[in-house]
């Protein structure tokens, strides 16, 4: 098992290098000059421009620039500086936490709502409630978060506040603590909730058809125990994979949600980074997201072995 973890981490290195090089090249190819953009409409001193271009290695070829950058990260833990001179690590410190909070709130909502709705639908298969849940998930999948975001801001943020007189769901910022994360968390989790609901339903329906469920019934166990112990334990396995892999997607998906709800996380930061051609910001954040992805997937694969004893890693 230890060997398996090490092998997986070694496999992660080319993935990390490939992903960062790709993003690096894309930002490199963007039109416009970041140094010129610093001064806006004003004239710049050509000497200073030259020094800055030199300092940020902007005159070097792409691969050399990439080498300076990536060796800085891996050899010195230095993610570089913005063109205004702020270290990227300092810029990201608080913001990463904000996005992680948002993604975790979304993940919890997804797990709780998705699994419960899926169970409900599976146990009432073919009945009205099952059809209603399936229709609702279809709606959630079809409507993009850009729409659900603004609609929920209006309904639950503005109208509900007017109706009851106090603010329940803040529509922007994070000043209200956990409460601020509820609406954006739901919007972020929206499509995932729908997919997880459907996955849970299918998984449980499938499991309840197994021979070992029939055996459990034949043992004289209550229906509650048959479903709760023998069924759920097996039906959960594919759900864990989905949830684990989804944590990465949720953090990546935060760009749109954070922009809608004005949440100061890395999503908003990455948006500004692209806008200002701040290569170190964009690549730095992507590097960390790729790392989160890799670690989350590794944890999922290890959890798999815990949940399903038939799987062994050598």
């Amino acid at each position, binding site marked *: 098992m230890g060997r398996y973890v090490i092998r997986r981490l070694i496999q992660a290195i080319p993935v990390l290098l490939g992903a960062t090089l790709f993003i690096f090249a894309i930002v490199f190819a963007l039109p416009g000059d970041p140094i010129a953009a610093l001064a806006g409409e004003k004239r710049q001193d050509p000497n200073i421009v030259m020094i800055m271009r030199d300092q940020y290695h902007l005159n070097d070829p792409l691969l050399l620039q990439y080498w300076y950058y990536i060796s800085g990260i891996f050899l010195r833990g230095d993610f570089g500086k913005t063109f205004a001179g702020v270290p990227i690590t300092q810029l990201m410190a608080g913001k990463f936490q904000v996005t992680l909070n948002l993604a975790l709130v979304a993940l919890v909502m997804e797990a709780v709502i998705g699994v419960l709705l899926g169970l409900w639908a599976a146990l009432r298969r073919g009945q009205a409630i099952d059809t209603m849940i399936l229709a609702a998930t279809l709606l959630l999948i079809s409507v993009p978060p850009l729409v659900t975001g603004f609609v929920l801001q209006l309904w639950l943020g503005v109208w509900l506040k007017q109706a009851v007189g106090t603010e329940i769901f803040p529509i922007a910022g994070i000043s209200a603590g956990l409460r601020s994360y509820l609406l954006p968390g739901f919007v972020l989790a929206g499509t995932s909730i729908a997919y997880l609901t459907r996955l849970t339903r299918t998984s449980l329906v499938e499991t309840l058809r197994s*021979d*070992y469920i029939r*055996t459990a019934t*034949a*043992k*004289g166990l209550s229906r509650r*125990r048959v479903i709760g112990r*023998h069924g759920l334990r097996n039906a959960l396995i594919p759900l864990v994979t989905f949830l684990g892999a989804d944590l990465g997607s949720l953090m990546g998906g935060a760009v749109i949600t954070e922009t809608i709800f004005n949440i100061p996380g890395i999503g908003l930061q990455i948006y500004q980074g692209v806008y200002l051609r701040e290569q170190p910001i964009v690549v730095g954040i992507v590097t960390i997201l790729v790392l989160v992805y890799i670690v989350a997937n590794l944890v999922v694969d290890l959890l798999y072995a815990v949940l399903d*004893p038939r799987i062994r890693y050598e």
Partner: protein
Amino acid sequence: MRKASTDVLPAEGGLGNEPLLAVEDLHVEFATRAGIVRAVNGVSYSLSPGETLAVLGESGSGKSVTAQAIMGILDMPPARIPKGEIRFRGTDLLKLSDEARTQVRGQRIAMVFQDALSALNPVFTVGWQISEMFRVHRGMSKRDAVNKAVELMDKVRIPAARQRVNDYPHQFSGGMRQRIMIAMSIALDPEVLIADEPTTALDVTVQAQIMELLAELQRESNMGMILITHDLGVVADVADKIAVMYGGRIVENAPVHDIYKTPAHPYTKGLLESIPRVDLKGQELYAIKGLPPNLLDMPTGCAFHPRCPYRQDNCVTDNPPLYEISGTRSSACHYWREVLDGDQG
């Protein structure tokens, strides 16, 4: 008074003439998109303590469905039992409440399934699955229950039971898995054990061991056993009597030795003739012509008539009743005399 007679099961013994288990005119049907599938059409059989009844028939003959109806593990719907009785020690199980039924299931009537790999839960250890019977039904502590599980694994002769109690089903061989399945089913000393093709998924040598084990366990505990199989070879040594099923009904009842010597139904005769025999080595194997009946669209008259070498005109129109041949034998064939005498065919 009436409630008492339907909801409370009598304890062991003291039954008068009532057999241990009696299935009476049982009908089971399934609602499917294509129509109503009549899987069981008026099956009756009975079982006494210590007796082994072999139910013989090909796939789709209704033998497993009958067993599942006795266990109460049919999915209803789509299954439905429009008619019939399943009397266990005189009480009709079909009239019991769900709760009372659950008390019978696994504790007094238990079942061994065909493929132990899929019938055991892959994510729990075998010890956990066996001991669950004691924890749930007897309220034992975890440790006591596991000790009981080890005892049972010893009893069904699993080597190094104490060391293997925490292994998972996939870590055992097919024969050992079936032993675990058996250990689980006899955990609470059931009065009736239903074994649904318990050896079909196993090697021939292992098949014999498992049958021996079942026979031995039965001798020790005097439980009644229903052995469902399509393999005539398996039956001869262990069964006391045989019920042959075809198209959802019983076509022949007989003590085991009579049926081998003198079958009284053309279908039974066909089955016996299709067993490979050493003295006929090199010759083509006998096979019953045609296909099993389509349960959605049963033939008129006798269900076997399209395949029957003894067919006469009235077989196409009149469904034969179960003719009594002697006190212990019956056959659902208009021409059972001819079959017995070995004419035609």
